Structure formats: structure tokens, C-alpha cells
């Protein structure tokens, strides 16, 4: 599936998703539980601001010296017998991987979760030469067998589906006969996929962090699928966004600690795997051949611009999990595999303003995303920069956005900022509300609520606001 999800204009998507009660309940539940879990592990860890500062320094240093570290990485991969392919475009990456598949006469390919292979739309390329491509992450597997339903969350791609829908898909596509119990469903997927791991010709993975000094790649999962994808097929292909790199094991360790806490509220996930080259001589498992594909696909044009900090991203989705707008409109509304605040910043950069001009406005600028980000990307500030560019340079501001900007300015000038500017439905604040007052608010409210309390937002405001915006103009 390409980065762009084709499902109609932005306002139509938002409208449909606002009416999807299961999805909205699932997202709200995920956010509420996730918030508590994340804060719990952060508090237990201690010195969180120091951690964020360290993680930010590591990411900034690596990006500023990206050519050096990619040089070192590629040298060390080659020394260990791995092959490295630098791909400027999605086409170059796909061509290279297709050539390998043809050369190996591959029939079956197993994949572990990889955002960048979605971004470059790799699967159809491999399918077009007759390969069966199987996603093995449980969430991705569910979406794939359901006729490529798009992902709605970076970490939990099938968040929008309920277990009955999943059971029905399994019945339709896999001859499943059991109940909608998640354990039974997961066990069935386990059995189906076991056969595939054991018979696949090629395993394809993403890359959480490459380690320049040792020429290694790090994979972070809970299911263990990436380990079987890399241990069993004879050929391993790892595809990485060119910025997903750290200098040494020591920095990898820090960023993994940040990633697992921020993404899923775990100290570490069940499986963190560091792979270097193909199998060692004399090993009886692991790939005989290893290829690392390093993908630019628009990233280098972000370097050296005011948007460079977005490349610090480690794809944890903490910003998504605290976003009051995502909470209501869900991942599919963003029209991109990258949803939530990070998606609203990144999608226009990688996919262009023509397709994604609305996304920077799908934000209340409440800054909860910026505060949650473990690598200190100033997400809400980058959204404002997008808006400036859209309005000033591109001249693409839709009518409704102009209205919103006007209203926002109005809002900032008076106490109604609180009623309009933050305009979150009460659900977004539910975990902070006590007796109708917000006592421990997120984002910029935090500093305020330490000394004063805010009235809780009134119900349905966000939906009303969105409806009003739609009436106010026809944006696309």
C-alpha cells in the first residue's frame, strides 16, 4: 500500500470517521490506557526530561553527520558480507528488491512490519512478478487478508477493527471456524504463519535503528515475527529510511528505551534483535544472504530546512496517542499511512501539499504532541510552519482554513481561546477532569494547571466545530 490512502477528500473522510462509533471508542480507549501506562513507565524510569534531552542530542548529531554515519554503516555491513543498496527513490528501491526476488526465483516472501516498505509501495511490485507476499505482524496480517484495509495507527495498524470483524475476515479468507476470542484468533494466525516462515524464500524487514559502528540493524517487536522472518528464509532484505541510524550500541540502547516506553509503555518489548550481516560461517540458521536497502524517497529534501527535526522521529506514535484530533477523527482521516501529528507534519513533506494540504490544519495546536515526543520534535511548531507555507507561498489555503485561522487569531485574543482554541471534546480531557475542573492538564495546560484550574470543556464541542467548519466552506 502506498503512503497515500485513497479514500476520498479530507472532509468526507473526517465525516465518515466521526460516525464510526467503534473506531472512536477504540481510539479513545487506546489513548486513555496508553496515557496512563506511558506516564507510569516514565515516572518509574525517572529523569524523563534528561532522557528526552539525551535522545534529542543523539538524533540531532546523527542527522547533522548523516553522510558520515551512512558511510560507516555501509562499510561495516559490506565487511560482514552484506550488500548495501542506496536508493534515492521508491522506484530504485523497488527495482533492486524485485531484481533480487527474480534472481532467487522467489515464490513466497514473508515480511515483518515496516512503514518504509508501505511508503514505497513494495508489495504490489513483488506481487506483479508472481511472488506471494505475506505480512506477519498480527495487525498487518489482519489488514492484508481483509483486502488490504489501510492501517489506522503507526504501531497498532488494525486498531479500527473489532474482534467480530476480524473473526468474519478470518472465516471468509482463512476457513476459520472458531470464536471472536482474541486468543483463538491469534493462535489461528500463529498456525497459518508458521508454515509460511518455514517455506518462504525471502524475508523482508524494516529497521528500527541501524548501528553504524558495527554495521548492525535493530528490530523491535513483541510478537517475535521479525525473528522468524530473519532466521528462516535464505535471503534477508532489510529496508530502512536513511535517517534511522545511530552511531553505536550505546545510542541504540538509549533510543530503544525511549521507543518502547513511548510506543507501548513497556520497559522493553519482548524481542529486541540486533542482526549483523548474514549468518556466520558454520551457523545452521539465519540468512545466507543479506541486503540492506537505504531509502531516501524525499527525506534528503527535508535536510537543511526548517523541517529537519521531523527526521528525528523514531516512529513511536506517542504524539498520535495523545492527540485530541486523532482521538476524534481516527487514523484513516489523514489519508496517509503516517497519521496523527507526525503524519500531519511528515505526509505533506513526503507526499506534497497537493494531497495533504488539510493535514496541518487537523490540529488544535495544543502542543500535547510536542510534549509527548521522546526526541523533542517541535511538532506543533512544524504544523504552524506548514500553515504559513500553505498560506503564503503555495496559495493553497482552503476557504475553511482561512476561516479557522481567522477564528484562531480571534481566539488567541480573548478568553474564548480556551473554548475554541483548544476545542477538545470532553473525552480528551476525561482523565484529567475532577469535579468538572481540569486539575492536571496535558501540554501547555500543564504549566497552567499547576497554579490554577480550568473549567472542563463542554460536551460535543469538537464535533460541532468540525461541522461548522464544513458548512463554512467547501475546501476541496
Amino acid at each position, binding site marked *: 500500500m502506498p503512503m497515500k490512502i485513497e479514500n476520498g477528500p479530507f472532509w468526507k473522510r473526517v465525516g465518515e470517521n466521526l460516525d464510526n462509533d467503534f473506531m472512536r471508542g477504540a481510539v479513545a480507549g487506546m489513548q486513555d490506557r496508553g496515557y496512563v501506562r506511558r506516564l507510569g513507565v516514565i515516572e518509574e*524510569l525517572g529523569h524523563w526530561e534528561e532522557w528526552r534531552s539525551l535522545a534529542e542530542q543523539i538524533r540531532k548529531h546523527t542527522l547533522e553527520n548523516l553522510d558520515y554515519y551512512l558511510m560507516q554503516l555501509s562499510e561495516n555491513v559490506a565487511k560482514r*558480507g552484506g550488500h548495501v543498496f542506496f536508493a534515492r527513490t521508491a522506484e530504485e528501491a523497488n527495482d533492486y528488491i524485485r531484481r533480487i526476488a527474480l534472481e532467487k526465483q522467489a515464490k513466497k516472501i514473508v515480511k515483518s512490519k515496516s512503514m518504509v516498505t508501505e511508503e514505497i509501495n513494495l508489495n504490489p511490485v513483488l506481487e506483479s512478478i508472481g511472488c506471494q507476499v505475506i505480512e506477519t505482524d498480527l495487525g498487518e496480517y489482519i489488514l492484508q487478508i481483509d483486502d488490504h484495509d489501510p492501517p489506522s495507527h503507526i504501531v497498532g495498524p488494525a486498531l479500527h477493527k473489532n474482534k467480530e470483524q476480524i473473526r468474519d475476515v478470518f472465516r471468509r479468507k482463512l476457513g476459520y471456524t472458531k470464536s471472536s476470542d482474541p486468543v483463538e484468533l491469534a493462535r489461528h494466525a500463529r498456525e497459518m504463519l508458521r508454515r509460511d516462515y518455514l517455506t518462504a524464500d525471502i524475508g523482508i524487514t524494516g529497521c528500527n535503528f541501524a548501528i553504524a559502528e558495527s554495521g548492525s540493524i535493530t528490530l523491535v517487536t513483541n510478537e*517475535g515475527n521479525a*525473528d522468524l522472518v530473519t532466521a528462516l528464509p535464505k535471503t534477508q532484505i532489510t529496508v530502512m529510511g536513511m535517517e534511522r541510524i545511530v552511531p553505536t*550500541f*550505546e545510542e541504540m540502547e538509549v533510543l530503544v*528505551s525511549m521507543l518502547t516506553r513511548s510506543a507501548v509503555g513497556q520497559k522493553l518489548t519482548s524481542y529486541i534483535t540486533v542482526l549483523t550481516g548474514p549468518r556466520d560461517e558454520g551457523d545452521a540458521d539465519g540468512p545466507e544472504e543479506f541486503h540492506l536497502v537505504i531509502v531516501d524517497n524525499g527525506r534528503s529534501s527535508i535536510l537543511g530546512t526548517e523541517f529537519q527535526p521531523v527526521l528525528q522521529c523514531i516512529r513511536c506514535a506517542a504524539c498520535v496517542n495523545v492527540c485530541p484530533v486523532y482521538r476524534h477523527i481516527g487514523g484513516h482521516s489523514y489519508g496517509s499511512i503516517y497519521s496523527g501529528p507526525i503524519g500531519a507534519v511528515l505526509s505533506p513533506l513526503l507526499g506534497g501539499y497537493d494531497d495533504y494540504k488539510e493535514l496541518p490544519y487537523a490540529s488544535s495546536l495544543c502542543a500535547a504532541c510536542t510534549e509527548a515526543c521522546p526526541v523533542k520534535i517541535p511538532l506543533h511548531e512544524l504544523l504552524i510552519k506548514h500553515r504559513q507555507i500553505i498560506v503564503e507561498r503555495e496559495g493553497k489555503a482552503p476557504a475553511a482554513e482561512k476561516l479557522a485561522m481567522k477564528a484562531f487569531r480571534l481566539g488567541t485574543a480573548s478568553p474564548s481561546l480556551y473554548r475554541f482554541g483548544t476545542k477538545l471534546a470532553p473525552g480528551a480531557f476525561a482523565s484529567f477532569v475532577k469535579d468538572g475542573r481540569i486539575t492536571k492538564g496535558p501540554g501547555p495546560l500543564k504549566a497552567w494547571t499547576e497554579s490554577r484550574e480550568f473549567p472542563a470543556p463542554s460536551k460535543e464541542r469538537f464535533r460541532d466545530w468540525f461541522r461548522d467548519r464544513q458548512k463554512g466552506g467547501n475546501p476541496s
Partner: protein
Amino acid sequence: MTRGAIHNRDAFLENIAHRLGRAPRLSGVSRPQWSAQPQWKVLAGYSQDDLLAVLREQCKLIHTDYIETTNAGLAGVLKQQVTAYGGGPVIVPDDPRFAEYGLSALLRDEWPAERTAIHIWNPALGRQNIDAAEQANVGIAFSDITLAESGTVVLFSRNEQGRVIHFLPKTYIAIVPKSTVVPRMTQAAVIIRKQIEKGVLVPSCINFITGPSNSADIEMNLVVGVHGPMKAAYIVVTDR
């Protein structure tokens, strides 16, 4: 080892340097002194006993059975745990520590006599090892480094210890010598990095394993046991 190929590197890196507005930097960069290093504050000053207590508590959160024993009791405890997980077939790496820890009799005599099938990883057997791991009910291995904070066992692959021992069996038991326990991943990273600096080749696969396989991809419900083992136990050997 045959050196791998590198394609399209020069133009790719030149473009990055161009975008960064400077000449290409292909050597001579060193890491700065990071101004914050909070990772060293975690469990700082903890004794080995304190760390074990942390590990024990963490095991409750990661759905992992935690058992303490002495070296003298290890064979009995291991046998009992394998029985609790439903018995064989069992797969183990060809690791000298099994003999050092007094487990040879169990592996070579006791279990075979009881018709508990044992497969000892043997690289000369090639693919048969993978088939044995796939059929195994229990995989057993020694932790090389153990992380108290997260409840993680660290395993280095080698010819005699295949990767899939930790993934294909239905259940998994890690034997944890108390001396392998360190506060967190920070210490493990330093241990590994020191080897790299000395010029030792890092193993082709290093696994950081924290309890059994799990997923929350269906309605955020935690399912323990997806692609990897469905149950896991750590047997801590307190006098090793």
C-alpha cells in the same frame, strides 16, 4: 569473509552533504560528550541481591515464571519446569555450561531414559536443527547477560546455538546465572561495544528477550503467545 557490494553510495551521500549545506563528511566525526546521561542513574548502586529482587518483581509484569535455585538444585528444578510445561521434546544449544552446571546426566541419561526427546543443536546437521526446534515443546538456553530492570535475557548466537531455539519451541526456559545480572540494557551495550572496539566480531544475531511472545493487535487485548513461545520461565542460579 567475502566483502559485500555497495551500490550508488557516492551520489547518495554527496546529495546529503549538499542538502546539509557543506562538504561531504566521510571520516573524522566523533560522538560528542552527551550533556545528559540519565541511563547510568537507573538502579545505580544496587547490589546483586537488590538486582535479583528487581528482576523477580519485573517477571510478574512480563508473564514469566521466576524460579530461584542453587547450582546443586538446578537439575531437579529444570526437570520439574520442563514437566510443568508438558515435557519434551526439548531442544538445547551445544553449550559447555550444561556440563559445568551439572546438567549432563539429565540431558544425556535421565531424559532419554524417560523417553523425553532431546535435540542438542549441531551445526553439522543443518536444517534438521530447525525441524527439531519446530517440533520442540521446550527450548532451553543460558542467558549471557541478564537485565534486571526489564527482565530481559541476552543471547549471543553462535554455531552451536542457533537463533530459532528461542523462537520456534512452544515454551522457553532461560537459565540465569546470578552473576550475569546487570541493571539494564546500558551495561549490556557497553559490554558488547567493548568487544567491538577490541576488534571482536559481534555475533550475527543478538537477542534481547523479555518474556514470552505477545500481541495487543486485536482490540488492544493482550494475547500471550503469538509467533514465538507461549510461556517462558527464568531459572536463576543464585550461586553462579
